[in-house]
């Protein structure tokens, strides 16, 4: 959680950058209001800017979509898939909900934390490589336990397999 402060307002980045311009306009054209584009555009922005939405990006997106930046902050902290804090180079989601828990997600979580050299989930490991996140049900229950590495689903994961997967990331 980020306590709001009264420090100098962040300098908004120019959003959207050239690469995203077309895609952003495409997204905007789908909805009757600009606000409705918040969710997909934030996902896009997060992907583009090192896998997290910094206050500067937040301000840039807010300006582009004509909403208050506090609204964007509200979205970032409401939806589990956004990172409002610097994320590592790779993001690992470990499902912790009932089915995956029954199938051994607890061990996976410990393995992931070990590989990431992080103390708790939601924090970037010491070497800044991984961010391990506890996620609620990922919808892969029949092939539990499930893990997402950088947005890609891996199913029937064992601790050995997860270690392999994480070591394969550079």
């Amino acid at each position, binding site marked *: *959680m980020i306590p709001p402060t009264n420090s100098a307002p962040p300098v908004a980045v120019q959003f959207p950058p050239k690469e995203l311009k077309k895609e952003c306009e495409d997204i905007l054209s789908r909805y009757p209001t600009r606000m409705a584009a918040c969710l997909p555009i934030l996902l896009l922005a997060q992907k583009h800017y090192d896998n997290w939405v910094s206050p500067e990006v937040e*301000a840039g997106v807010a300006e582009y979509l004509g909403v*208050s930046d*506090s609204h964007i*902050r*509200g979205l970032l*902290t*409401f939806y589990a898939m956004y990172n409002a804090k610097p994320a590592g180079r790779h993001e690992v989601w470990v499902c912790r909900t009932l089915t995956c828990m029954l199938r051994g997600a607890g061990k996976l979580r410990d393995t992931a934390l070990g590989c990431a050299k992080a103390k708790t989930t939601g924090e970037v490991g010491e070497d800044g490589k991984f961010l391990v996140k506890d996620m609620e049900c990922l919808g892969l229950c029949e092939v539990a336990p499930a893990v997402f590495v950088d947005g890609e689903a891996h199913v029937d994961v064992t601790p050995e397999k997860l270690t392999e997967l994480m070591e394969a990331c550079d």
Partner: protein
Amino acid sequence: MGDAVNTIFINGTEYPFKPGQTVIQVAQENGIDIQHYCYHPGLSIAGNCRICMIEVEGNPQPQISCKLDCAPPPWIKEPLRVQTESEVAKQGREGTMEMLLVNHPLDCPICDQAGECHLQDYSYEVGQGQASTTTAKTKLPKNVPFGSKIVYDAERCIKCTLCVRFCEEITETNELSMQGRGDEEMVVMTSKGEFDTPYSMNIIDICPVGALTSRDFRFKSRLWFMDFANSIDTSSAKGVNIVTGGRNGTFLRIEPRYNASINDWWMADEGRVAYKYVNSPSRLETALVRDADGQFRVANWEDAISAAAEALRSNPGDILLDGGCTLEEMVLAKDLAGAMGKNAKFAAATGEGDGWLVTEEKGANAKGAELLEVARAKRAQAASVLVIEREEHVNASMREKSGAVVVFATDGEHVPESAEVVFPLPSWAEREGTLVNIDGLAQWMERNPAIGPNNLPVFVEILEDLIGELDDDYAWRGADGVRAEIAALPAFAKVALPWQTETPVGAGS
């Protein structure tokens, strides 16, 4: 449809309702108190605090009354029957209260809201008196600045979102939003600039708990030591209804008061902090008379009045009034000027307005002066009597140029060189009288006895005494006599005067 149901039974009594009204509105109109946090008559209905539970007969679960339409569903032809004090309703409220207090800190001793806190009041009414949990409370940021005027405490916050809705719906500036989810939810402010909009401080009033407190009033005084009076904001000519609060002579706080025809529930921040000069250390407390060697000495009222009459006899001139003077004061000032064969004028500043509660005209009674045919003073107005309360109405150069010999001033700093006799003027919060706002609505301004120095003379009485000194035939009328005279004036034929109507204009809940 024809015979649509248009009544509702609350606690067994039938009340009529207008289409679209919810149960809580009808209950409030009829004096039935239903506890609520997130409901505010001026904002949209969120229905998230869940404390306004009532029982709807035939429904085993309690329902929230703030969103419950009085009209039954179209297939039911019977009026709705609700109970506000039944077991089901009480149990519903108790359950919610317990939840509200799970993570609410035991902050009351340090919280400014204590004494006017709805959570305190309602937990006293329906709370269990004992916590059923020993688990640690959720830790959230405390003491978060929301701009320079407001402090936010996320632990005390009950997430009713009134402040967020205020910024969305009333000011339409959207500075606030909710952040996080679950029990880590809290209000977050925009990081763009400061949350210092002209109406930001209203969120302090609507906050039902002590989550939003005023930086200005922070830790100044406990509520129960203070005295309150229903007054009128004199920082602009809109006539915003307010409540003044003071203790031991110190003016501590201004809060808005409901008036549907002027300000609803709101007021501008500008008016809210326009009381500081009342607490000035250089406030005048005694009458001063200049003696032979040119020094001021303290005089008693009789001496000061005769000295003032002497000065006016040898130096007759116009009277320059502060634009915030009441109708009564203006009438008497006119008479005083008449006794000298001169005129009364008023001075008032103009500034920026916002088309809502801040007017360009800053003289609170400028409209009243117009009705009484008291003219606006020129920039350099020669006068023998000067009544000055607010610096901005009669600035330093105007004061010096007036050459006034008798001066009524709140602040010793405002007395011009030429003054021979100086009377201490009670500030607007210490005077009572009638003001006419820019839309022609006459309103009563109440005196707050807990503000200002002790034993100040009543301004209208001094004025009358002065007239009596100058005019031997003068018959004392008293403030009531003056008011009767005002009511008889043709200019006021169409103005509803507050002391004439049984329920004063603008009185509201």
